């Protein structure tokens, strides 16, 4: 690998890294609460609600995110009613916004599955104890179910964070210039496909090592003295 290729590529990729980071941060900040809400809805007794949440998760987990991002950006862009609605068009018309939307919708479905199983595996007695104390449904969730489920879900969720960071690269297919977007330009310019690719991967790896190790630390923090 030539040094001048690295020095040429890195500034571009750094610029892209900012966008990747932006998409990922939004993906986690919006996708996590959204996913947890979905998980709660799926466990709720209202058949209508829980069925719709089930279907939502099945669809978004069952289809490639590339297609989801395409449908949101190119597909909806073909519909003139959407083009003329300023609010929707602000989200869908703008490639970065559309990319964030796609990431959030997608990760929400996966996060919901992670939290659903975590919630299901909680020992029943612990929940009964909080019901017996007269804690409301919300307080039971907030102070007993949620903290226990988070601890249970954390290893799986850390993977999901790594996936968010990597899947954000699909934003390049709708013209967002994040790391991969720049990488594609650099590749077609220089044909140094492998070299650019390895440099690019180093960027993703760096971001993920940081997020995965910090999640590991949180995990250790939440081990309740064990």
């Amino acid at each position, binding site marked *: 690998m030539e040094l001048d290729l690295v020095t040429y590529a890195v500034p571009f990729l750094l610029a892209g890294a900012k966008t990747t980071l932006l998409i990922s941060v939004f993906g986690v900040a919006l996708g996590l609460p959204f996913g947890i809400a979905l998980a709660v809805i799926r466990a709720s007794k209202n058949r209508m609600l829980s069925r719709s949440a089930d279907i939502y998760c099945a669809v978004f987990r069952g289809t490639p995110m590339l297609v989801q991002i395409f449908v949101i950006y190119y597909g909806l862009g073909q519909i003139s009613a959407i083009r003329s609605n300023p609010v929707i068009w602000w989200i869908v018309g703008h490639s970065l916004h559309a990319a964030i939307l796609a990431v959030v919708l997608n990760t929400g479905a996966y996060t919901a599955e992670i939290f659903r199983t975590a919630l299901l595996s909680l020992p029943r007695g612990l929940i009964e104890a909080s019901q017996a104390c007269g804690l409301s449904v919300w307080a039971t969730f907030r102070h007993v179910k949620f903290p226990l489920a988070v601890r249970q879900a954390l290893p799986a969720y850390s993977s999901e964070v790594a996936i968010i960071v990597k899947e954000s690269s699909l934003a390049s297919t709708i013209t967002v210039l994040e790391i991969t977007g720049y990488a594609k330009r650099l590749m077609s310019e220089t044909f140094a496909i492998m070299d650019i*690719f390895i440099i690019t991967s180093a960027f993703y790896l760096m971001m993920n090592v940081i997020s995965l190790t910090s999640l590991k630390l949180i995990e250790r923090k939440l081990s309740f003295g064990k």
Partner: protein
Amino acid sequence: MSFDLWVLLVEQGWGFALLRGATVTLAVGLLGMLAGVIVAVPLALLRWRRLPLFSQAVDGYSILVRGVPGLLVIYLLFFGSIEWVQRLATAFGYQNSADSAYPFVIGVVAIAAISCAYSIEVFRGALEAVPVGLLEAAKSLALPRYVTFFHVTLPIALRLALGGLNNVWQMTIKDTSLVSVVGMQELMRSAAIAAGITRSPLLFYCAAAGMFFALTAISQALFSHTERFFNRGFSRG
């Protein structure tokens, strides 16, 4: 429109091309997931038992593979090895089979490597959630380690791991699109070619998504069934 569909999917044969792609996807996905899980179980176990050096190595592997784009994994595996394999194959006079079988093998290996890294985390989390007392009970009864593992740890951990494994599977079946890198025409690549040639990207991408959904819907049903099986003996929380 319906006439267009007929022409595109049947007369021009793109529908069959997608189906052919779907079989490649399914084959690579199933084999990759299976191999990945089989390797992940012992690795997760080593990690869980905190074997010095081993668990660091497992952690390193898992962070590395989860941290880099899947494309890099397959790029490096394939382009890093193909020359040697071809040399070997030529030396033994198997040039042709190396050409056709090797990409498939590498595709499966790459998918397995990725699904393995994710499965390790899933299993590790599940293993850590198995109540210590239940394992102590097994120890105190002098159960051999493998019995404790297969009859106590695994059934309880599997129940906890099922949701996570389901997620890994859903991800893996879609990660099979990576094997297009080694020249295999899986579902997404077939859709991409059809989209480019016929200039109907939305149609073909949605058709591909539909096929993915059909595959995952079947597997989802299987998972739900298994979940019910593993939940025997546990009151629902």
